[in-house]
């Protein structure tokens, strides 16, 4: 015990200082749900779908589980940083709930894969582990040389925002009532997570230094190029393709066309460029200039 360093904890302020973030904490407490109880599982009926569609949906929801797990294993490190840096209490309160919600999303995605026929605990070929294994947020959160603003911009305003854009754009295609309800519930939580990131950055923007701006530019660019374009969310987007099997790469499309979640390449061709244009415009008032991204399938975006 004696070898550890002690935080500068006091004064321990607890009164809200960012009303919009405090409101997100309050809302999160009133909108809790339980994956076991709040999804109409008896309406899933996997027996009504052909084997190929069930396999694709199992792959899709297993993959989502691995992605959600990152928010249990990695992003909670941000809360430790908020505490060390004595950030506003609103941030600390809200982030505890975010971790809880992400745990719920992971459990719900696992349950969906299980009830569709079985969850896959890993990618079919190990090399794709790199692409889906980590977004590196824990390392960033523990790195004093990476600004909190850069992490927020890359994790929340990039990685989570594209996830939500994809959900929003495709939730109507989920004709299966259980899948649709699950997507709606995840979407409802994630909307708060995104709002949290943007509200914090908007509030801090007036104090951004040129270094902060560069940090944001670098972090967001890396998240798009090294994580999103590496197939973290959708293997079809993976620039190199990795070692993912054709079955895995096509799983999102097949599941989506069956109404069981996921996106088609046509959806991605539309959603990703719109997303990049949106965050580019949204970050511009902060002085952030995002570069044009080259992608072999999407072109220059």
């Amino acid at each position, binding site marked *: 015990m004696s070898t550890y360093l002690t935080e500068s904890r006091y004064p321990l302020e607890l009164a809200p200082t960012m009303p919009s973030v405090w409101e997100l904490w309050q809302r999160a407490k009133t909108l809790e749900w339980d994956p076991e109880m709040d999804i109409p599982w008896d309406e899933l009926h996997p027996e009504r779908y052909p084997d190929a569609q069930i396999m694709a949906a199992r792959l899709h929801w297993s993959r989502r*589980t691995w992605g959600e797990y990152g928010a249990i*294993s990695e992003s909670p490190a941000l809360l*430790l940083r908020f*505490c*060390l840096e004595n950030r506003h209490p609103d941030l600390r309160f809200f982030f505890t*709930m975010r971790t809880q919600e992400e745990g719920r999303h992971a459990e719900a995605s696992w349950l969906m894969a*299980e009830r569709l026929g079985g969850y896959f605990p890993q990618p079919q070929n190990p090399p794709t582990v790199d692409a889906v294994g980590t977004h590196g947020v824990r390392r960033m959160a523990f790195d*004093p040389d990476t600004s909190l603003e850069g992490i927020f911009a890359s994790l929340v305003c990039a990685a989570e925002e594209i996830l939500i854009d994809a959900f929003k754009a495709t939730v109507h295609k989920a004709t299966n009532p259980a899948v649709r309800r699950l997507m709606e519930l995840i979407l409802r939580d994630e909307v708060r997570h995104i709002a949290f990131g943007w509200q914090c950055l908007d509030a801090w923007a007036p104090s951004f230094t040129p270094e902060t701006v560069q940090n944001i530019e670098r972090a967001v660019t890396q998240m798009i190029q090294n994580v999103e374009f590496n197939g973290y969310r959708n293997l079809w987007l993976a620039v190199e393709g990795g070692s993912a099997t054709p079955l895995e790469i096509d799983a999102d499309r097949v599941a989506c066309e069956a109404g069981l979640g996921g996106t088609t390449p046509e959806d991605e061709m539309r959603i990703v460029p719109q997303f990049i244009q949106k965050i580019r415009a949204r970050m511009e008032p902060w002085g952030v200039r995002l570069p044009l991204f080259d992608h072999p399938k999407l072109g220059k975006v």
Partner: protein
Amino acid sequence: MSETSDRLLRGYQAQEKRFLERRFPLRFAPENPTLRELYNQAKGFRWNPETDVAWSRFDPAAHAPAVREAARLVWSRRAWGTYPGLGENTALLIRFCLESGAGGMDAKLFLSFRPAEEAKHLEACFLFATRLGGYESTPSHAAVARASNQPFAQMALDPDLPVEAVVAALGCLDDQLDLNLCLCHLQHSRDETARQILRLVAGDKQRHVLFAWTLLGQRLPRLAAAGRAAVAETVRDVLERVILAGYRNTWLMPEDAREPLLAAEALTAEHGLGASTVAQEKAVVRATLAQVRERLATWDITLAPVNHPELGRA
């Protein structure tokens, strides 16, 4: 970023780099039904300090100004003692993810909920202190600040310390004491609002303590001798250097650091606003140490008797 937070962050960074996380195959199926049940209960027994406490029925004017002042200090101190739960449980969650890799999902899911539960307890303490006249953000005595500021999050991420030792010291000892004190305060409170808060908080704490004992029961029998020695040493260390230094009990603090908190606790207890007398707390501490010692002994972990001028030999 201050120099202190920079050093602390670099400390976390160095600790994290010493682990090698193996994420796949990522198993989600329950491995320990009791832990998974505790997680399921956490989802089912959720509550909201803003709406599940009948704040409108609390009338501060029903209490004399001196009583309100005392109670707001007591509930502020309770907030200082609750706040570390946000960080230490988050650190423990990360530790499980780093260490147990693909397994241990029951514990991870449970711990993904716990920081939010601690945050709700914190908010409840803050709201009650506010209604009693105002939350106090800083202890009036430096010794109280020191006693309530322990580096448990670093401890949880320390790769040189078995995770069983962390769970034993923080969960089986400190959380158990915290729960027993909470139940004692509840038993001796007459104010409806104080009782509501303490009852809701105790419900969560009960799960937290069960989690620690269940996890230890699962893992201790498989732990090698060096690990078991570390468990015994860590529990003893936290008991002697933290608990007996007044982490949870003001009367265990050095004599010159106890006031005005000790008097505030006595007045709050007298008026039934959510505290216990020193005699009642002493009984709880002694009973808790006996309880922890007996349970650890079933795994051949010895917690030797301790001496403290206020507590005696326990």
